[in-house]
């Protein structure tokens, strides 16, 4: 499944472990060996079913078009990906094509001179089809270092059946309405909102979205280049969250609930009708589908945007989300960029969207999205005035991590809105 990597269960030893990536031979940028044969190594994070099959088929199709190219695929468990990749990059045996999620993490790879500049390698048609918004997530100083494969905007997924059961007729558009919905659900004995705070980032999503509503577009955009939480809107976002959390909208024991693992996780609670809502990115329908009793998509799954907040400076209908994509190692042969270009074409992207039950990055391929919840997401996404990247991705690993933990502390009653701002400012100072 295409999941956001946050949990990486890596034992201490693995930090010093030897990367198992196969070594690409000579390849130093231009072309392969004398006889034109080129080997590419490719790491992605789909370890099961349709996603894995998709990449195998795509690689085979590319090899057929480019005789002499041989792509070796390795699927790496999502939770292990970051650690393995980092070790591989350090040892100089990095895969030619690897997964990237843009923002501060990619910036760190680029800064270390490990990612290839793809600005001139991509055709203008491809750039247009992918759109500036998703390419911006992979751009550092105006140069493109990655190619998006899917866009994953966030919002609230909900069970239509449970809403009906609780007598909720309209999806909430404001926080007052959301509060009413929470009360009605509680009254009918249903956990209103599933939250996997054990993984920290799902809890932090609530804060990100309040910040998206409270802060202006300029303030949000500035975080990428000049990270600072000095603007008062970040404090207000924390206060909004504290106020909302005080109404106890989340499932019992949310602090030790994980996001995606098993029936007891937040996605599992939604999949099994134990909770009515979950704030998540566009990978959620796929994750929920894998956790329903019959492992089929949840038939009554719906979606609505994060409700409006009174008096915020955020643009109306603004969205937040992630982008999944792939980058090339700095020394990868030119066929790497050609492969990414190939994978971005309409036909490949349509197959991708179907395999991963998600939204393709190529706009021309969006016609294949049939999941009703995802169609809702797509409609809002195409209407959004701007789309911000997840704050923790935007701020990079160090600051993002501090922010996520700060939010969890607030929800656990151990911290306050000012504490979140302080934690972020401290982390920014640490670099």
């Amino acid at each position, binding site marked *: 499944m295409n999941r956001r990597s946050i949990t990486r269960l890596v034992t*201490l030893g693995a930090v*010093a472990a030897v990367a198992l990536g196969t070594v690409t031979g000579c390849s130093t940028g231009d072309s392969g060996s004398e006889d034109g044969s080129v080997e590419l190594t490719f790491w992605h994070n789909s370890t099961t079913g349709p996603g894995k099959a998709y990449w195998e088929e795509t690689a085979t199709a590319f090899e057929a078009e480019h005789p002499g190219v041989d792509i070796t695929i390795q699927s790496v468990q999502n939770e292990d990906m970051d650690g393995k990749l980092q070790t591989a990059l350090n040892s100089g045996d990095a895969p030619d094509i690897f997964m990237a999620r843009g923002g501060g993490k990619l910036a760190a790879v680029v800064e270390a001179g490990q990612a290839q500049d793809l600005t001139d390698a991509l055709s203008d048609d491809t750039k247009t089809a992918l759109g500036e918004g998703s390419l911006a997530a992979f751009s550092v100083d105006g140069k493109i270092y990655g190619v998006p494969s899917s866009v994953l905007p966030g919002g609230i997924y909900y069970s239509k059946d449970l809403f009906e059961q609780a007598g909720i007729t309209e999806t909430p558009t404001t926080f007052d309405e959301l509060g009413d919905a929470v009360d009605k659900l509680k009254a009918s004995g249903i956990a209103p909102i599933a939250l996997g705070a*054990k993984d920290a980032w799902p809890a932090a999503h609530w804060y990100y979205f309040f910040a998206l509503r409270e802060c202006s577009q300029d303030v949000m955009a500035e975080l990428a280049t000049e990270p600072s939480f000095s603007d008062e809107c970040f404090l207000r976002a924390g206060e909004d969250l504290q106020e909302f959390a005080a109404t106890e909208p989340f499932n019992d024991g949310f602090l030790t609930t994980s996001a995606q693992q098993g029936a007891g996780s937040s996605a599992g609670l939604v999949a099994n009708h134990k909770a009515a809502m979950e704030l998540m990115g566009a990978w959620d329908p796929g994750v929920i589908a894998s956790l329903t009793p019959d492992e089929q998509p949840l038939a009554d799954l719906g979606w609505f945007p994060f409700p409006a907040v009174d008096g915020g400076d955020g643009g109306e209908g603004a969205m937040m989300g992630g982008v999944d994509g792939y980058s090339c190692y700095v020394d990868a042969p030119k066929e790497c960029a050609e492969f990414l270009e190939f994978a971005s074409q309409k036909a490949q992207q349509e197959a991708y969207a179907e395999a991963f039950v998600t939204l393709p990055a190529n706009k021309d391929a969006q016609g294949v999205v049939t999941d009703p919840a995802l169609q809702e997401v797509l409609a809002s996404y195409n209407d959004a005035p701007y789309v911000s990247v997840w704050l923790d991705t935007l701020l990079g690993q160090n600051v993002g*991590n501090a922010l996520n933990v700060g939010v969890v502390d607030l929800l656990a009653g151990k911290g306050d809105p000012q504490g979140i701002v302080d934690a972020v400012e401290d982390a920014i100072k640490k670099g």
Partner: protein
Amino acid sequence: MSVRTSSPSVGRAPANGDRAGDELSSPAPRRAAAPAASTRRRRAADWRQVMEIAVLVGPALVIFLAFVIFPVVMAGYYGFFRWKGFGPPTDFIGLQNYVTIVQDPTFHEALWHNLVIVVMSLVLQGPLALLLALLLNRPMRGQSAIRVLIFVPYVIAEVVVGTGWSLMLQSNGALNGLLEKVGLGALAQDWLSNPDLAIWTLLGIITWKYVGFAVILFLAGLQGIPQELTEAAQIDGASYWQIQRRITLPLLGPTLRIWAFLSIIGSLQLFDLVYIIWGQYIASTAGTSTMATYMVANGRNAGNYGYGSAVAVVLFLISLVVALVYQRFVLRRDTAGALTERSDR
């Protein structure tokens, strides 16, 4: 009547297989007077011995250096840098990482939790294990079944234990369900997320898991106590409790001290159980963080590999100091003779 059992391992010096010691201590004049041929032979023998040692110890030594000593040295080196883990570290910041660690209240909390775990592990497990070992040391019905029950938790992998307990202790988990069923619903708790309770939950799981290890050690120690002593005391009219207090406990001393040592070091380095049950982020929120989980949370997860290495060094030094102090003052009697340094007393 008592049956005499001679225990060969008690009070006998270890058999000294090599003759090198005798060679070295033999007075020099005699050696000079020895014929040249035998000297050559002896030199050849010495050389052969060195080779033997090198061949036998070499591979293990190489692996030990490469996978233990080298990483430790590298962690010490990385600890002086601000390093994101990409490429070689270049941003040298001296002791800045260590200053940050010492000033970080989150680290203080983790250290405090470690200390609580160290002390409470000894307090909870020691008496309990002793009691169980004494019980299991005498013939009784169902002995082997009880033994198995006590040892099983110790044999199960930490990850499995952590996963199982975390599922059972969820607020909608099996334990609260059981309490509801037997009408004790009022006792149902948020075992894992309540910051006042979580550390006790952890201590309970640690006790449940590791008490078996202590029992194994104590039983082995009890086996080594000669039967004659207790029999003699019985004949002299000592009560059961007197025998345990005056004979069994003192003779179990070395075993107790070794167990306490292993327990302390294990508690200082506790990582896996906490990491599995509370995940990567909420251990400090729930009040169960340890120095090792702090290291992973602020090193690896935050992408600050230099800082994480510095924390590793601090953890290493704390463990080392504790180990050395303990060896020097507590284990000195037990290890006298086993250590190379001469104890002058």
